[in-house]
Each structure stands twice: as structure tokens, then as C-alpha cells.
């Protein structure tokens, strides 16, 4: 597969993502910068974590107005696979490729810790190597990760299987104690109606090697190339 890793001014997980795709997955990967106007010939486009344009105005909004932002929309509308991690997730909501918005964490602190997540939908190209209902562990690192969407849309997302990952405890229980940032419905990751665009706040690219104490992040990447 041929991957693109999007680089905006302020992206800071771009090299980690590139490393995982090239060195751990053994796939072809290129960086594309924010002035890129077309995304041709790629099998998957990844928006990595970071602080694009310093999170000014709102996290992700300035990145969404770049030529690359337009190119991502065009690519996604043709059915291309798009994965947004953390700031990449924020950018995808600002591009309206994913519903809702990510707001300041409820407790106003930047969170950098491990969380447990329940895989609610394993039928996506991004999650097919997980079991449905499986509890996985990934790190989070964000200040604006509180997912919000109006109630009606939440219901239709739920019915359409668009809620992909939810924060849970070690046993898979969804409750407020396991919700790190106050996200609506404990939501940590969602997809679009068609299932080709996926955004999540946790960082799978940081959880790919036993050396780092994780094994669950790499499963997501293996799902993509399976």
C-alpha cells in the first residue's frame, strides 16, 4: 500500500507515524505538505497528531482551510481511506468529513496517560483485526479531546455504527470514571457514514512495540494492510 502522511506547520507525530508505516508495516509512505493540492495514487492518507498552526482560533480549523485540506476532502469523497489521529481527528471534524467537534477537556488540563478503549465497530478497514467489544489500551495526549455532537446526530451515528471507540475501564465498562475528558457518550473515535474516514483521539502510532509496553496500536495498522 502507498500511504501519505500529511504535514501541517505544527504536526509533531508525523515522523512517528512515518516510522510505523515504513519500518514496522514495511509499506510505501510519503510526506505531503500543507500546500499539496492533489492526493493522487495513495491508498491511505493519514493526518497525524500535533498542534497544526498552533491550535490558533480552534484546534484544526486553520489546517482545514489549506490546499491540503481541500485535497483531503476530495480524496475522501472518492472513497479513499483517511485516518486522523488526535489533531488529525480535530482537522477531520473541521473539514466536516466527520460529524461533531472536539472541545477543551472538561477538567481544563492537558491529559497524557494510558486509557482503555472498547472497540464498538470492528467492520472498518481500520479495525477489522480487533474483536468487537475487545478492550484495548492506548495512550492519549491532548488538551481538546472532549467530543461533542448534538443529541439527534448522536443517535443516528449510533444506529449507523459510526461510534468506533469508547473510553472504558479495564473490564470494558463504559462509565464516567473511565471518561478522561468529558466526551459525550465516552466517545474516543468515530467514522463517517461510509466508513472510509476514521478519527480517534488516542495515539495508535505510539503503541506499536513491546519495547514501549504496548501491543494494541499496531493491530490498527495491520488492519489497514490486511
Amino acid at each position, binding site marked *: 500500500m502507498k500511504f501519505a502522511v500529511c504535514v501541517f506547520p505544527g504536526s509533531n507525530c508525523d515522523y512517528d507515524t512515518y516510522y510505523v508505516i515504513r519500518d514496522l508495516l514495511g509499506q510505501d509512505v510519503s510526506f505531503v505538505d500543507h500546500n499539496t493540492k492533489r492526493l493522487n495514487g495513495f491508498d491511505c492518507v493519514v493526518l497525524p497528531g500535533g498542534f497544526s498552526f498552533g491550535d490558533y*482560533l*480552534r484546534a484544526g*480549523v486553520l489546517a482545514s*482551510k489549506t490546499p491540503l485540506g481541500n485535497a483531503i476532502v476530495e480524496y475522501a469523497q472518492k472513497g479513499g481511506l483517511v485516518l486522523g489521529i488526535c489533531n488529525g481527528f480535530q482537522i477531520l471534524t*473541521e473539514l466536516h468529513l466527520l460529524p*461533531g*467537534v472536539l*472541545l*477543551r*477537556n*472538561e*477538567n*481544563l488540563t492537558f491529559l497524557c496517560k494510558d486509557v482503555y478503549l472498547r472497540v464498538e465497530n470492528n467492520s472498518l478497514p481500520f479495525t477489522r483485526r480487533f474483536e468487537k467489544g475487545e478492550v484495548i489500551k492506548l495512550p492519549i495526549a491532548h488538551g481538546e479531546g472532549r467530543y*461533542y*455532537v*448534538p443529541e439527534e446526530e448522536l443517535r443516528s451515528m449510533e444506529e449507523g455504527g459510526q461510534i468506533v471507540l469508547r473510553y472504558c475501564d479495564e473490564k470494558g465498562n463504559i462509565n464516567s470514571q473511565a471518561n478522561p475528558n*468529558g466526551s459525550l457518550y465516552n466517545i474516543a473515535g468515530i467514522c463517517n457514514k461510509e466508513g472510509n474516514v476514521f478519527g480517534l483521539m488516542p495515539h495508535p502510532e505510539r503503541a506499536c512495540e513491546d519495547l514501549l509496553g504496548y501491543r494494541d496500536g499496531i493491530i490498527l495498522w495491520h488492519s489497514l494492510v490486511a
Partner: protein
Amino acid sequence: MKVRVLILPKRGLLDPEGRAVKEMLLDGGFDVKDVKVGKVVELEVGEGTDIKALVEKYLVNPLVEEYVIE
């Protein structure tokens, strides 16, 4: 033409920043009913600029924010 846009979180939405400021003020002994923290964007634009389009397309997220143009 100078324009000032006041952007505030929508009513009814949790505004943790406003809540934190309110709690601080209450602790300081002030009788404060509510606090919302937003932002101000000052623009200098050419005559005939469609300010509403500019604001709604770029400056606010209508899901969670409301605005006033001065």
C-alpha cells in the same frame, strides 16, 4: 472598515473555562451568576466584504459557538 467579532460558547453547552473563572470569583467573595469565556477577533476589511460569510465559514464553529459582530 474595522469590525470586531465576539465569539462565545453557545448557551447550555458546558464551558469549563467559564466555570473555572466563575468558581474563582465565587471563592473571592463576588456574587457571580454566570461566566462565559470567549474570544474577540478584530478585523480590518475592505468595503463590501461579506463579514457574515467570513465569520460563519472561518471564525466560528456553529455547532458550539455563537457570535456578535460589532
